[in-house]
């Protein structure tokens, strides 16, 4: 058997194994409904993340870190604090991006703002458990074993799948909070976001989501007395 056949066989077996782990729809549905119900009462979320970009070419993952802030009904702030500084702010109507240059924030005149707003919206929906809002774009399945609790989103659009194989949302044992998000790309590269220091129902200070002059993150943190 040549190497190509062996690789195809391994990939096929891996696919079968993954498929076997996915719960049938009748078992997945109550889990998704419970997640959405549990998140529905939340007014806001503060969560820090460590991002690892795994490119097969490089021996070590490329790391960055930051915070994600979500405030209902539709506001999100995604801020990368290292190794560069960048803020993305979005709501249902608009999106804004700031880059730090020599310690000063500069607002970008964004190209494709609709596309970026859509990405931000999807990130917000995922973290709020509103998966029914994503079913137009993704096939949603649930994997639940003793070791793994995750929700898998597979893009329905073929052209999107050429860039993104799947999004895996690794959940806590109760399926009530997102612990990790893994974005898998064709060819084996992937990005892992590990969430930590999550705080729920915090009151963000004025300016946190301001798309013209966002409040500095340090000031946001200082205002959230129960956020370390």
């Amino acid at each position, binding site marked *: 058997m040549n190497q190509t056949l062996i690789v195809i066989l391994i990939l096929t077996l891996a696919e079968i194994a993954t498929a076997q782990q996915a719960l049938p729809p009748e078992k997945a549905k109550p889990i998704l409904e419970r997640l959405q119900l549990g998140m529905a009462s939340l007014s806001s979320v503060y969560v820090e993340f460590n991002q690892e970009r795994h*490119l097969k070419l*490089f021996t070590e993952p490329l790391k960055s870190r930051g915070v994600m802030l979500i405030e209902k009904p539709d506001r999100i702030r995604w801020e990368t604090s290292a*190794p560069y500084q*960048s803020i993305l702010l979005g709501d249902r109507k608009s999106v804004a991006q700031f880059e730090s*240059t020599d310690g000063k924030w500069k607002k970008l*005149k*964004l*190209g494709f703002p609709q*596309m970026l707003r859509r990405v931000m919206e999807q990130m917000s929906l995922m973290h709020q458990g509103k998966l029914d809002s994503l079913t137009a774009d993704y096939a949603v399945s649930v994997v639940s074993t003793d070791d793994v609790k995750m929700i898998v989103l597979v893009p329905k659009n073929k*052209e999107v799948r050429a860039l993104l194989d799947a999004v895996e949302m690794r959940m806590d044992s109760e399926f009530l909070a997102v612990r990790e998000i893994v974005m898998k790309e064709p060819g084996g590269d992937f990005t892992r976001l590990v969430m930590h220091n999550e705080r729920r129902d915090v009151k963000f200070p004025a300016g946190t989501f301001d798309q013209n002059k966002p409040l500095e993150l340090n000031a946001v943190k200082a205002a959230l007395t129960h956020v370390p």
Partner: protein
Amino acid sequence: MCLKLQLRVVALLIILLSGCATPTPRQTPLRVATNALLIQRGVLTIHGRQFTLNGYLALSESGGMRLVMTQALGPRMVDVLVKNDGSVHVMYVGPSLRPIWIERYVVRDMKHLFGNIATPPSSPCRALDDTHFEVKDRAYTLELRTVETKLGPQPAELFDETKVTK
């Protein structure tokens, strides 16, 4: 805007990421390091619109360069190897991108900014300092910063075009 059109426009932007035309001479080589992995952040401005990109540039001791570009929140877009003999190998190009565009524009700027050759007088590429670079063209500008430098020999496979990563 439909997805296909979006992909094509993104492709156009990537092409222009490293284009060169307007003279802004700098005669000395701009290379900042060998045996290093440079992590870079770029802001591309084209027709008044701005886009952010991340770059991972591995530099060998002998002058080889391997660049992987990714979207800020997205997948790998370009993977290109420039060997120490100057030969160019486009290892991966994302959907809607053409290898010739990468060779013509991205590689040219890699050579001008980080190669072991003198930058031609006609180059629009210049270094503002060791970590801050600028490309100015009539149609666009690129502001590029090295945000992290990991010193140390890079794996030899990175500079071997026969080790293909799809």
